[in-house]
């Protein structure tokens, strides 16, 4: 039996697809979301067992190439300095994210005007502000209002406790007179809308068994389903189909039994992340769109931005109780966020203080960094490291670069035979200089906090969480894929709401901004529904 046509078809049930679906449901159209992954169960998350650290490197690894689960597709990363990370399930990357929740700052939207590099966005911070606030309420954000690095906003809940490790590191920033502030965190410090507060399990990045971390399967989706939105899981979209006039009319997808299905829709919305979205567009070639759907500009899959990371770790004499508490949420610093050309690079970076390593991670990190021998002396050195390390992550701004791409791999395919993405990305000279600067400043901060020794990973390869820029927004259809409403220039009933539309990356985790954009696009559709396709 053919599938009933729907008004809005959303592809991808992650951070952006969930927010968009929840909002667009108010338009009165039928809404269906397809996701290639399953619903997750909190009782299956690794922190229910002693082997939580091992599982975080196995079936809950952030790398689809390591996991290789049925919901995953492979990514050819041989031509990339950074490994792309993601999770394929209802909730998407929010299942495994750290939930660090900064917003882009107003200046991030006008990089070209301020610094003469990259591009300006066609929208600004003020446009998104109400959607940031709405999103904070839906996700449940803990934080401390008044951070001078951001426009004033009030997080929904009080900040999470820094713990001894955060207090120790923050004291180092204080000593240097550097900016620091408790992070906005999409983790509950108090009960919120039926969800229980954080109990400091530690391994947020392999799923939150407590449900205190905001993954969209437990925030937006229940609310969206109450509005009538349908979610169909285990469904992998092969291509977006088009009518003779070039407008999208639905998708072809493989159902959980592997049968090819057709789903018709009036509006198609992509929320597949900065790799999955260009992959699907490039796999959707037709006589009307021979270079892939919505790709008359040639920008689909171009300008991939990641945020190169450095991790700098200090070893302290005192135990820091660092394994406890949400691993990625403590405090941030924007001390080096803005351009200062005397540093030898443009733009800047933020620091994110993270909590400590578990025993397995301590052992593996110690071995790789040369601190922990095998054999004689192993235990003595382990005791010196375990619960005695604290780390800073430098999140550096990645400038848009057309040579950083997502293309279709000529050989690699997923389990359905659909061409897989190939990522081509080389660290730029600007990024190298920025990372080197960040490493030295982080060592200063850790030393000021009391570290007796430091160790740096100047480029953290397994950190390609932030997938941005590969279908960017802009007013000019010759240089961008979607307009300021996320609407494809070439296909008026096709919208993109994930990180692909980012024009520039800023130097903060992008999910708060991705979700605000998704809510803004949904609202724009609702407000303009009568005239949305007039120029088609």
């Amino acid at each position: 039996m053919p599938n009933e046509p729907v008004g809005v078809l959303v592809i991808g049930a992650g951070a952006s697809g969930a927010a968009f679906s929840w909002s667009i449901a108010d338009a009165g159209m039928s809404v269906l979301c397809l996701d290639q992954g399953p619903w997750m169960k909190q009782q299956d998350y690794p922190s229910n067992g002693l082997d939580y650290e091992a599982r975080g490197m196995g079936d809950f690894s952030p790398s689809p190439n390591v996991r290789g689960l049925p919901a995953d597709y492979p990514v050819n990363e041989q031509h990339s300095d950074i490994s792309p990370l993601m999770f394929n399930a209802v909730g998407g990357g929010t299942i495994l994210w750290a939930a660090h929740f900064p917003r882009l700052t107003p200046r991030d939207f006008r990089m070209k005007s301020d610094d003469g590099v990259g591009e300006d966005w066609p929208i600004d911070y003020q446009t998104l502000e109400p959607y940031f606030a709405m999103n904070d309420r839906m996700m449940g954000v803990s934080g401390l209002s008044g951070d001078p690095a951001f426009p004033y906003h009030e997080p929904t809940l009080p900040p999470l406790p820094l713990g001894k490790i955060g207090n120790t590191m923050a004291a180092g920033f204080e000593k240097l007179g550097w900016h620091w502030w408790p992070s906005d965190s999409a983790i509950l410090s108090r009960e919120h809308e039926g969800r229980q507060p954080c109990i400091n399990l530690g391994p947020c990045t392999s799923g939150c068994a407590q449900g205190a971390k905001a993954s969209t399967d437990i925030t937006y989706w229940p609310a969206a389903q109450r509005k009538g939105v349908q979610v169909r899981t285990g469904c992998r979209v092969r291509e977006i189909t088009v009518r003779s006039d070039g407008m999208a009319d639905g998708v072809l997808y493989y159902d959980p039994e592997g049968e090819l299905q057709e789903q018709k829709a009036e509006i198609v919305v992509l929320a597949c992340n900065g790799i999955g979205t260009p992959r699907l567009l490039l796999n959707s070639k037709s006589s009307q769109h021979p270079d892939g759907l919505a790709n008359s500009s040639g920008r689909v899959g171009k300008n991939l931005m990641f945020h190169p990371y450095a991790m700098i770790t200090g070893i302290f004499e005192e135990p820091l109780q660092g394994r406890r508490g949400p691993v990625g949420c403590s405090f941030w610093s924007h001390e080096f966020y803005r351009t200062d050309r005397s540093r030898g690079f443009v733009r800047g970076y933020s620091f994110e203080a993270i909590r400590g390593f578990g025993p397995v991670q301590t052992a593996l990190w110690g071995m790789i960094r040369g601190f922990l021998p095998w054999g004689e002396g192993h235990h003595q050195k382990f005791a010196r490291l375990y619960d005695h390390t604290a780390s800073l992550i430098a999140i550096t701004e990645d400038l848009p670069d057309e040579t950083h791409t997502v293309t279709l791999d000529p050989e690699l395919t997923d389990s359905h035979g659909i061409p897989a993405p190939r990522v081509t990305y080389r660290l730029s000279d600007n990024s190298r200089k920025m990372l080197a600067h960040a490493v030295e400043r982080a060592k200063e901060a850790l030393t000021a906090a009391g570290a007796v020794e430091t160790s740096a990973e100047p480029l953290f390869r397994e950190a390609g969480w932030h997938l941005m820029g590969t279908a960017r927004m802009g007013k000019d259809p010759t240089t961008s894929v979607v307009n300021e409403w996320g609407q494809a220039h070439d296909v008026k009933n096709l919208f993109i709401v994930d990180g692909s539309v980012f024009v520039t990356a800023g130097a903060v985790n992008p999910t708060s901004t991705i979700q605000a954009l998704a809510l803004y696009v949904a609202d724009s559709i609702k407000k303009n529904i009568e005239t949305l396709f007039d120029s088609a």
Partner: protein
Amino acid sequence: MSDAPAALDDQDFMDALFDLVIPPSASGELPGAGTLGLSAAVATALQADPLLGPLVEAGVQAVREAALTQHPEGLPSMTPQAGTKVIEAQLNSSHPLLIMGLARYLYAAYYQHPRILEGIGELPRPPFPEGFDVEETDAGLLEKLQARRKTL
């Protein structure tokens, strides 16, 4: 052709190897890795790893063969010093990644074992459902932030 099991499946040999990689602590509080019954789990994990598995398998095979040339009963009957030298010789010749590859799974198995967790001062239980307490944010630090706060 030898009837001996593959080195990864040779439990006595693997336990002896594990005890050399993570020996008992000087105080005796922490047991050696070879006494915890980890070999089957580590072997299974390695055999499922297409990258590290073959590297480690070749390395442990070479260690076992080299040990047998020095002692008729191989590694389990050698002194720790002699066994360590056999491993080091393989690391310095054909199998430089042996320990790193093995440790990827051995450390994971060892440091999640209840006896080891207790020995390093942790509760031998999963994080969930009890969770943990965390020290509050330092009031003195918060006071400093209050003075810098931007207001509406």
